């Protein structure tokens, strides 16, 4: 019992502290590739600190939904992050739900974010919300199919069980179903975290923005919570990608050596994935909004193929 509480607290601290770093690293690396000086690695922490100290402006037209949204978003995302194995193969709250809970906790947060965007009645908020919901509605089937593929391989939707079973079989990530599911989930990661072919996190251009349009009315601590939740969401999706498909080195006990080794490996894997994402971002142009469904359709086809190939190559 004590151990559970302890591991939960550690994971909360880890997720809260690590998630801005991953984003900062991604931005810094991207800047370096584009031969810019770029912000420092810890700029996201500074931004959060600055925003948390500022006062905020709440629009007159806003209702309670506007004020509830940052909290709901932050808490659901943080809760989702406790259901996935990060350093230890046993996620702290894995008893409470598996990957379905993760997906739909994130969906709940997104639902409130979309409501918050609509709530103030500004046209940009509505625009961002409708785009966000369109994209997530198409990304979800691809995500779920890929997740089911992985779950079939492990015989459980619980992410800890999945990671443990993948840990037990070396070379499992070479199976075609795993590879295809990984590719599909990677596209979903790009779409869900608003990366470049889908959305540009660094712009406020009204023609293209999605996530930024929804949170345009937020300021101060509320904005900090929403930004932080976005960092955590990115960390959650990336952790699913690295730890479910490549779980090498996950700690299965609580000895200091294995935990430290696992932590180092986990950060290394995350940074590697952040580099891959940055390369994709740098080497692509932003897609027209109406082309995004085609990209997500590719993800859907890949994950459907992944599901088929679990049966196709069962020999």
């Amino acid at each position, binding site marked *: 019992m004590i151990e559970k509480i302890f591991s939960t607290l550690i994971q909360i601290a880890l997720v809260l502290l690590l998630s801005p770093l991953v984003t900062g690293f991604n931005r810094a690396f991207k800047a370096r590739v584009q031969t810019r000086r770029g912000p420092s690695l810890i700029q996201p922490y500074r931004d959060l600190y600055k925003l948390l100290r500022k006062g905020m402006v709440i629009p007159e037209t806003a209702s309670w939904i506007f004020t509830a949204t940052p909290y709901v978003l932050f808490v659901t995302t943080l809760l989702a992050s406790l259901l996935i194995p990060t350093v230890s193969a046993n996620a702290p709250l894995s008893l409470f739900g598996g990957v379905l809970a993760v997906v739909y906790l994130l969906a709940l947060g997104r639902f409130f974010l979309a409501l918050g965007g609509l709530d103030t009645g500004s046209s940009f908020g509505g625009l961002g919300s409708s785009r966000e919901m369109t994209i997530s509605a198409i990304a979800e089937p691809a995500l779920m199919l890929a997740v089911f593929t992985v779950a079939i391989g492990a015989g459980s939707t619980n992410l800890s069980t999945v990671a443990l079973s993948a840990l037990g079989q070396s*070379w499992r990530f*070479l*199976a*075609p*179903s795993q*590879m*295809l599911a990984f590719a599909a989930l990677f596209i979903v990661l790009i779409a869900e975290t608003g990366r470049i072919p889908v959305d540009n996190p660094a712009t406020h251009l009204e023609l293209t923005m999605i996530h930024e349009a929804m949170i345009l009315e937020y300021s101060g601590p509320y904005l900090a919570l929403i930004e932080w939740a976005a960092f955590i969401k990115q960390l959650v999706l990336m952790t699913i990608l690295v730890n479910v498909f490549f779980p090498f080195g996950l700690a299965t006990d609580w000895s200091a050596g294995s935990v430290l080794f696992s932590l180092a490996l986990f950060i290394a894997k995350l940074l590697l994935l952040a580099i891959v994402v940055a390369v994709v971002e740098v080497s692509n142009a932003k897609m027209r909004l109406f082309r995004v469904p085609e990209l997500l*359709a590719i993800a859907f*086809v*890949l994950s*459907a*193929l992944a599901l*088929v*190939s679990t*049966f*196709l*190559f*069962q*020999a």
Partner: protein
Amino acid sequence: MHFWQDVLFGNRMITLMAAMVLVLQITMVTQRWLVTSIRAFAVQSFLLACIANTIAYYNNAPHIYAAALFMLVVKAILLPVIFERLVSKIEIRQEIEPLINAPITVIITGLLTLLAYVVAESLHRPDEPMGPASLGHNTLAVAIALFLIGFFMMVNRRKALTQVLALLSLENGIFLAAISLTYGMPMIVEIGIFFDVLVAGMVLAILVYRIRETFDSTDVSRLSRLKG
């Protein structure tokens, strides 16, 4: 013993490459750009050569190495180069006009894959021991799927060059079935087939060029105008 000498590892690699081959086939069916289609075909042929190579390595069978080499030279290098030259010569790039739109094509492709799976399932023997001789037996479903999707691609396309590509990818399916089930056909048959494919590819390329010269288009449905 190194890990790559383990038959199970070879089996995983073959399975993975076979899955990539299937993905490439689906890329070709849904692709809008002709040049991308040709390159997808080249990569697919390259992967098949790799599969043949792997099977040859685990079985110590020199004649499969020869088949892999032929595959590499003829289908992964020679034919794609000829086709790309042809495309730049007749100066059309965006030229694929499928009869059925992309989403329905994907669904049909998926159904064909399922059909291939059902057919291959009836030939599947799960009690078979895993050894060098049974390497790649589980790729039969992919081979049949390649074959069926190749056929579908042939009827779905109006332009001559894409039909040629479809024919060749269909032939890739036959190659995969032959190599994974029977360690390839006898050498002389293998040589005959590759020579055949090469000549057919070149003749068809010339034919495409002639059709284009005559009709200012490579749309084969215009050939019906030739009737007296």
